[in-house]
């Protein structure tokens, strides 16, 4: 069974490896954006889906990664290849801090606090426009000397694979078991020797670091970093992708990210209404299929197996 999984994973990665050969420049761009959302949704899912901490600051951490690397590149001339790891580190440190701040919080209180953190970050970016250029956008150097869509596709693919491997390893190790124990019942988990504080803060830190990585790479791909990356629109999009795909499952956010990003390209002509469409889909899924697409498929599969 384990071998089958590895073979399947290798086939999928292999197919993605040759994917740019069959895609034009526009389709490659869409795939790159999909991979960014895969990283964002999967890392948010690690926090919300596995430890039950619904944070609204996830897009803000992507912004921290992007702006740290971008500002270092523009103001200090630092290579993005060094700036991105520093952005990841900074996002992790801030994530650790927010994790500690929210230690005693759960449910709506945690969500409201992270919403506040996100908004504070947004206000700083907009007001400190002499450093961040605010809504004007910070133009940053790319990761490649010669711009190449295919090159960025592979960079984003490798980054996404690394992120997914980290997440997969965590949820299939003892840490993942502890995550689930904390999500189900903190007191029961603590009585069984799980260090709840450590687990909650760890989830926040790792999730924030991965968001910072996604934001950093994405910003240097776009060559432009704007407050759109750490916006609430972005946050709710990531949330919708995870819920629609299937929160609390490894593959759910991946499916959600691809489905919604590709769908959004088709309905982009409707302007801001495409966010409304996503909201309606997310609402319908939450009401009729709370386990997302993955849950629907699992239910269908189980039904077929029994009949």
């Amino acid at each position, binding site marked *: 069974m384990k071998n*089958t*999984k590895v073979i*399947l994973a290798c*086939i*999928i990665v292999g197919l993605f490896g040759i*994917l740019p050969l*069959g*895609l*034009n*420049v*526009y*389709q490659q*761009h*869409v795939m790159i954006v999909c991979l960014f959302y895969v990283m964002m949704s999967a890392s948010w899912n690690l926090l919300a889906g596995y430890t039950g901490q619904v944070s609204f600051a996830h897009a803000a951490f992507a912004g921290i990664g992007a702006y740290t690397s971008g500002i270092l590149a523009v103001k200090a001339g630092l290579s993005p290849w060094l700036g991105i790891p520093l952005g990841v580190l900074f996002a992790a440190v801030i994530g650790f801090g927010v994790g500690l701040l929210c230690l005693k919080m759960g449910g709506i209180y945690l969500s409201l606090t992270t919403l506040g953190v996100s908004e504070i970050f947004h206000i700083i970016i*907009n*007001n400190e*426009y002499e450093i961040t250029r*605010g*809504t*004007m*956008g910070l*133009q940053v150097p790319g990761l490649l000397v010669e*711009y190449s869509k295919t090159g960025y596709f592979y960079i984003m693919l490798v980054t996404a694979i690394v992120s997914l491997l980290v997440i997969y390893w965590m949820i299939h190790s003892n840490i993942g078991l502890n995550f689930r124990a904390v999500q189900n019942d903190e007191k029961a988990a603590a009585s069984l020797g799980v260090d709840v504080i450590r687990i909650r803060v760890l989830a926040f830190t790792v999730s924030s670091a991965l968001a910072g990585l996604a934001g950093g790479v994405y910003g240097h791909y*776009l*060559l*432009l970093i*704007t407050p*759109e*990356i750490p916006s609430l629109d972005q946050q709710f999009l990531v949330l919708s992708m995870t819920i629609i795909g299937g929160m609390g499952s490894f*593959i759910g956010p*991946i*499916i959600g990210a*691809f*489905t919604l990003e*590709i769908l959004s390209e088709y309905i982009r002509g409707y*302007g*801001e209404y495409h966010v409304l469409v996503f909201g309606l889909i997310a609402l319908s899924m939450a009401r009729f299929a709370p386990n997302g*697409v*993955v849950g629907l*498929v*699992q239910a*269908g*599969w189980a039904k077929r197996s029994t009949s």
Partner: protein
Amino acid sequence: MKKSMVCMVFVVLLIFIGSAGFVAAETLKIGVVGPRTGTAAATGKSFTEGIKLATDYVNAHGGVLGKKMEVVFEDTAGSPDKAASGFERLVTRDNVVMVLGESHSSAALAEIEVANRLKIPFIVAEAWADPITAKNYKFVFRAGPSNSGVVNETIAKWVIHEGFKKAYIVAENTDWGLGIGKLCEKALNAAGIANKTVVTERKGQDHYTELAKIKAFNPDVILAFVYGTGLHYFVAQAGEVHLTPKAIILDGAGPPSLWPDFWNNVGDYGNLECLVSSMHKDVELTKLATLFRKNYEKEFGKAPTDYKSRSIFDVVLIAADAINRAGTTDANALVDALEKTSLTVTRGQVAFGTTKGGPEYHQWMPPMLVIQWQDKNQIVLYPPAGATGSLKHK
């Protein structure tokens, strides 16, 4: 279960790959970028109106390279990231041969980088920041106002002409606002006119703090570089605190004071407000300007107000003319043709600057007017040659 998951991923990928097949073009596509949503969505509406009249005009006169011209409009919402990705989408998905438009400088500054990278000619219509052309990119042109052109040729001269002694500059925190604010400071200092500047948030709705500072300075004129409905809040709140009409407000962009909801939002506080514009029914420089007004009235059943509908009309005509003269859609040939443009449009005779080194490169600056609202009538104040009245104070 795992198999079904993998199948789903493949199906999604196959749908995506299969549906993007390219259908041979029977029309020649031009891309337009501009805000259709956000605080300046009205500009997108004006662009749409101008595009309709321009495509009708071009197609009625033989089209482009023997084909009908088709315009694909991509919404940028005035946001640089949406603008850059929208521009790229027009080129890579819609296969447009040229891109036109834009009304936000920050969005245009993001777009010119894409135009330069993809080597696709881009004619900016109404984004004024100097660096757009000052970067001297081969594929970037501007057939519209530039910050330095508007300040040095119109705003500063008008302030001196009216004999104002003290001016307050209100600049939004955008490339356009900060750039034009700095140029105004420089021009007013050179003219010996006392001035101060305050920077305001682009999407700000509460200007009372800035207004208290401005009132303490007691200026004769306020040069407001705030685009979108934010300008409406500013004008209404300036009236509420009795800063106006003693001090005259100049809307340094123009269109927000011409949008249909202006009077609903500002009420009587809009009276005596001044604005910059390139269009007035009594100052039509060419026969095409008159034709544009008549066609607009016929098509939309109202008189044109927002001059940006006419700006995009001109830019579409400039693009069509360049494509026809080039005889090809090759980007380098289009740049050569654009550099040799000599075309009469609604705002005069177009000729792009070709001297490198400053914002004049690939720039054509149309003449601008200063207009004052007097009892809801537009009175041209400046330049004196086109004036239809004089400044009213209370």
